C-alpha cells in the first residue's frame, strides 16, 4: 500500500513539474520548492550516514585514544560554519583555505599529469598501424594544432595565424555539432524515463496493488 501511495505522489509531483510547459503556475512552484528542500535533506542524510557516522563519529566514540586526531577535521569542518556568525566570520577563512588548497593542489596534478601530458603525447605519438589510417592521424594532428592556435589569443588572428585559427574553428564546429547531436540524445532519454514512469510503472504498480 505504501508503494501505491508513493508512486501516485511521485506521479503527481512529476505532473506538477510538467505543468510548467503550459505556463508558470503554483503547482510547479510548489514542486520546485519541494525539489530544493528534499534535495538538501537528501544531502544531509547521505553525508551523515556515509561519511560522518563511519569515518568520524563511530571511530571517535568507539576508540577515542587511537582516533583523537580526527578532532582536527571535526574542528576544521565545524569552523566552516563560523561564516554565518558576522563577528567571527573571518575564522572560516582558515578552514576554507585548507579545503580549497588541497583540491586546488590535487587538481593541478590531475590537469598536468593526467590530461596535458597524455593528450599531447597521444597527438604527437600516433601509432602506425593503429585503429586510424595515416591520413586520419594527420587530420587529427592538424586539427589539435589548429584548435590550439585558435585558443592562443596573445597573437592577433591575421595572416597565417588567422587562416590556421579559421581551420581550428571549423574543427570546433564539427566537434560541437557532434556534441549537439549527442546532447539531443541525452535530453530525450531523460523524457523517455519519465514517460515510462507515468505510463508503465504507475499503471503496473496500481494494477498490482488493486
Amino acid at each position: 500500500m505504501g508503494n501505491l501511495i508513493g508512486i501516485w505522489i511521485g506521479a503527481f509531483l512529476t505532473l506538477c513539474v510538467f505543468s510548467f510547459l503550459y505556463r508558470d503556475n503554483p503547482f510547479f512552484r510548489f514542486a520546485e520548492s519541494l525539489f530544493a528542500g528534499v534535495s538538501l535533506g537528501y544531502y544531509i542524510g547521505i553525508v551523515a550516514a556515509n561519511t560522518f557516522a563511519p569515518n568520524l563519529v563511530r571511530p571517535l566514540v568507539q576508540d577515542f585514544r587511537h582516533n583523537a586526531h580526527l578532532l582536527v577535521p571535526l574542528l576544521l569542518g565545524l569552523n566552516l560554519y563560523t561564516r554565518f556568525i558576522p563577528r567571527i566570520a573571518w575564522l572560516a577563512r582558515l578552514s576554507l583555505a585548507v579545503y580549497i588548497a588541497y583540491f586546488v593542489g590535487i587538481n593541478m596534478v590531475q590537469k598536468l599529469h593526467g590530461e596535458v601530458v597524455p593528450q599531447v603525447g597521444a597527438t604527437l605519438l600516433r601509432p602506425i598501424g593503429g585503429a586510424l589510417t595515416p591520413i586520419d592521424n594527420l587530420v587529427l594532428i592538424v586539427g589539435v594544432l589548429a584548435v590550439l592556435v585558435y585558443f592562443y589569443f596573445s597573437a592577433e588572428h591575421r595572416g597565417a595565424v588567422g587562416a590556421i585559427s579559421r581551420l581550428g574553428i571549423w574543427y570546433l564546429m564539427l566537434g560541437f555539432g557532434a556534441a549537439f547531436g549527442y546532447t539531443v540524445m541525452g535530453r530525450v532519454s531523460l523524457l523517455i524515463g519519465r514517460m515510462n514512469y507515468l505510463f508503465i510503472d504507475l499503471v503496473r504498480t496500481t494494477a498490482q496493488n488493486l
Partner: protein
Amino acid sequence: MFWKVRLPLLLTALVGLVPIVTFFLTDRVPLIGPAVPFVRDRVERYMIIIAGFALLLGVVNVLQGNLRRIERRLPGWPFAISLLAGLLVMGVFGILSAFRVGPFQGLLATPDGRATPFYWMTIHMFNPLQAAMFSLLAFYIASAAFRSFRVRNVEATILLTAAFVVMLGRTPLGEYVLAWIPGGERWVPRLTDWIMAVPNTAAQRGVIIGAALGAASLSLRVILGIERSYLGLKGE
C-alpha cells in the same frame, strides 16, 4: 592582519603543496621518507570528512534565506514553507537513519525488501522530482533547436551538418536513409564513427589541453596567493 589574511594564505600554500609534493616523493626519500605517506594519507582522510561539512554549507544558507522570507512575508513565502518542510523532514529522517534509530534502519531498503522512511521519500519524492526537472530539457532543446538553429554562415553549416550526421548515425535512421543504394546502409554510421573518432577527437583534445593548462595556472595562482577571491579578498 596576520590571522585574517596572511595565515589563510600561508595555509593555502602549505596544504596546496601537499598533494603536489607527495606526488613526486615516496617513502624512500632520505630523512623525510616515512613522513611522506603519513602526511599524504592523513590529509586525504581529513579532506573526505571536511568535504562532507562543506557540502552541507548550502543547507544553512538556504535555511537562513527561507526563514527570513517567511518572517518578512516576502513574495513567494508560502513556497518557502514547502521547501523547509521537505528539507527538515528528509534531513531528520537522514540523520536518524545514519545512526539507525528505531524504524530508521539505514538509507536504503531493509534486507527483507521493505523501504525505510528515508528510502521511501527518496524513491517517491527525491527521484521523481529530480528526474522530472531535468526531463523538461528535452522539450527545451527541441524548441531552441527549431527557433535558433539557422544556417547563417559556413561555420553554422558545418555545425548543422555534423549534428545531422550524428543524429542520424547514432539511430537506425542512419541505416535506412541511404539503404536504397547498394551498400549505402553503412555510409552514414561509418561517417558518424569517423566524425567522432577524428575531427571531434581533435576538437575535444584541443579544448581539453587548453582548459587543463588554464586550470593548472589558476591552481598555481591560488597556491601562490596571487588569486584570493575564494577567501573573499582582493588579489595582489
